């Protein structure tokens, strides 16, 4: 069974499609009936084939995506009808006028009136499509009614997400910086204001809205609104180099109570690990190995001075994910790998809208940590996710890496770091 109607009529090679063509052929008389049939077969196709692919473009979960989807139905139906008519006529002609020994037909170059009529007809159909299209374009571009502003910044190969100080989003008094996962309040119109630090990336959460390229040097906006709480998967869709396939993101919508808790969590003061614990050793390992690039807000050095990471001195894009609240997120490395173990993952991802907020706010606990992949990452990041970090071949970037380099950490150091990171929430 096929999914896209225009496709299902292309080829008389499969029996199933031939059957469908002939059924619809009989009903050419009434275009309304055809429309109903087409719409009906769409529904059937959707039910038959639609798996719950997280990035399905035909399962809108918010107002913006729904506007697009409504338009899709109109356009796909019209395209479907046109396809059916064209292929029916064509199939009829091929069958009727096959060589059966008839005499050579009249050598005519056509009838101009018929020609003009058949030129105007598609033009009219397209005018019919153009009107709602232009309306939807304008509706989707409206930004003044948004209630919450979130900045996203793309770089190879992850998204930084920050919430500037504002009255919107239920009030944000201190900037929040996170990465990979954007948390919003369900039912709130969110304005994403995006740009990029290096090459062009594209922000796309299919169930919430279409995609928008994030271009360095420019600020582009796109609206998001989720009907109800849930996790909505997305992916960078503008080819952005080596690990383009590993640059993903999610939007997590939660109710206002949960969202308020999440916001408060994000700006909590830094709590240093208990002295002498494995995590405390992890803190000093983090300071020596990681803090050149990764910011942990509130982390201080031995002189009690704030440690300010300087990714611009090490990374070409000039940024690295802020790890202050690392374990409040549940994916890492460009949202490409789960921080949650396979057992715990469905507990969050498949949770019902009423429970998902709480499940997400639990963060990643000791028992739920996907320790295997996190350790693989710490052991040798470029082996897990293709990145440009080989010190031998960095002349083009003046020695700066693109991505996380191989750090040659010992297994002890990895143990310490995992313990330390587990407390970052």
């Amino acid at each position: 069974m096929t999914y896209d109607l225009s496709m299902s009529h292309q080829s008389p090679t499969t029996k199933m499609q031939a059957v469908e063509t002939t059924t619809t052929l009989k009903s050419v008389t009434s275009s309304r009936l055809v429309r109903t049939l087409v719409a009906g077969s769409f529904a059937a196709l959707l039910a038959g084939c639609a798996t719950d692919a997280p990035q399905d473009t035909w399962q809108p979960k918010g107002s913006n995506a729904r506007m697009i989807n409504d338009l899709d139905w109109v356009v796909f139906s019209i395209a479907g009808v046109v396809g059916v008519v064209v292929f029916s006529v064509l199939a009829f002609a091929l069958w009727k006028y096959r060589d059966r020994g008839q005499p050579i037909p009249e050598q005519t170059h056509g009838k101009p009136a018929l020609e003009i009529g058949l030129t105007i007809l598609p033009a009219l159909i397209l005018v019919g499509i153009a009107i709602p299209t232009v309306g939807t374009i304008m509706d989707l571009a409206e930004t003044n009614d948004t209630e919450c502003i979130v900045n996203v910044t793309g770089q190879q190969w992850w998204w930084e997400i920050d919430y500037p100080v504002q009255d919107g989003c239920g009030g944000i008094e201190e900037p929040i910086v996170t990465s990979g996962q954007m948390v919003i309040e369900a039912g709130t119109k969110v304005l994403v204001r995006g740009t990029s630090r290096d090459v062009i990336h594209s922000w796309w959460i299919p169930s919430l809205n279409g995609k928008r390229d994030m271009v360095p040097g420019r600020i582009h906006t796109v609206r998001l609104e989720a009907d109800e709480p849930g996790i909505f998967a997305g992916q960078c869709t503008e080819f952005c180099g080596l690990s383009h396939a590993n640059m993903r993101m999610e939007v997590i919508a939660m109710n206002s109570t949960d969202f308020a808790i999440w916001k408060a969590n994000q700006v909590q003061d830094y709590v240093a690990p208990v002295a002498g614990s494995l995590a405390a050793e992890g803190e000093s390992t983090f300071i020596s190995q990681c803090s050149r690039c990764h910011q942990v807000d509130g982390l201080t050095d031995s002189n009690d001075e704030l440690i300010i990471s300087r990714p611009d001195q090490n990374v070409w894009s000039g940024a690295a994910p802020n790890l202050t609240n690392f374990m409040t997120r549940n994916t890492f490395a460009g949202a490409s790998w789960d921080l949650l173990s396979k057992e715990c993952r469905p507990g969050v991802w498949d949770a019902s809208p009423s429970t998902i907020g709480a499940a997400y706010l639990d963060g990643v606990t000791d028992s739920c940590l996907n320790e295997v992949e996190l350790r693989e990452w710490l052991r040798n990041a470029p082996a897990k996710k293709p990145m440009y970090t080989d010190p031998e071949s960095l002349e083009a970037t003046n020695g700066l890496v693109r991505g996380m380099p191989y750090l040659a950490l010992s297994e002890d150091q990895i143990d310490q770091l995992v313990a330390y990171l587990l407390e970052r929430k």
Partner: protein
Amino acid sequence: MFTTGSKLLIGSSVFALVAAVVYGVTQNEALGIVGLVSAACALAFLAGVNVWAGDSNLSALDTAAVATSEASDDPPGASIWPMVFAVGAAAVLVGLVSQQSVFTIGLVILLAAGAQWAVQAWAESASTDSTTNAAVRGRLANPLEYPLLGAFAVGGIAYALSRIMLWLSKTNTIIAFVVLATIIACIAFIFAARPSLKRGAIGGVLTVGAVAIVAGGVAAGVDGQRYIHVYETIAADAALVCNSPEEFEVDEGASQTVSTKAGTYTISLTAAGTLEFDVPGPVAEGSDAISLRRSNPNNIVFRNDSGEARRLTLDFGPAPEDEASAAAEEGYGADESHGADESHGDKSDRNLTCTSLVEDGGAQLITVKFAEPSFAYADDAEAYRFYVPGTDAEIDVVVP
């Protein structure tokens, strides 16, 4: 048989050998002996060849070949290449002891003459007919000669012309160019209108023109070019320029418009003397500071509606040690024409960037990039702040 040539060679060889012996006895020095003996051997070899082949390039044994030999072809015509080759060789030698440029020119002449010589020699052996041979030569050499000579001629004239133009003053350059262009256009018109003009006349006029230009170029080049002022950049004097509402050299001719550029931030200096910012989409309510991204080239359009020429300055915080001292030493602060007052002097240790002076109603694009987050400068009230020198207008920047 001992031909005339072989007798000469044998004699020379014997002489060289005798000379070697004499030299060896009297001088007792190895190098000279080696040289003379080598010469003797070489001459003896040539003598041997000569005895075997005779004086012509035919084998003396080949009696039937006379009619078909190349020796019976037309004698080769005159050639200028040996002489040019010699000139090149001389220039190479002179260049070796004097100037490298002479050496290079000499080398080029040497190679070019050698190549021409070789092509000519090759072409002359193509057939007995010297007209055909000339055509043969032309077919290979012309495609190389024409563009090269043309390029040299055009390049030389263009270079000479550029020397003349750089020698003249700015205004005279324009006049000279107009006059020259008019003359060329007039002459071209005459040539076009009178197709019957003799080739010699046209060639003569063009030659005179070319020679005049080249001569003028040589004279101008010897005299040297006019004074050309090198403008300062803002970065060189940021500490002074960015803190002053006055006009500096860097502000001259500064751009006053920005092509409509979507997707940028805008900071406007209003008529009321305040700074306001605008962004794509709505400005978040409750934010009084502009939020810019770290490590990102933020494009900001500065619009000036204040009624006076103003610049927008951004304070990145204290300048790093070495830069601050450098700024203090090299800055305009010591310059008598722009005597810096106290407040300016205080700020010279800041890391600043700014637009050039924007007139009322004008706009200019500035691209700023922050390496550190703003909380790194939490104690520094001056840092991460846009301001307009000469007014109180300012706006804070938050970099998360």
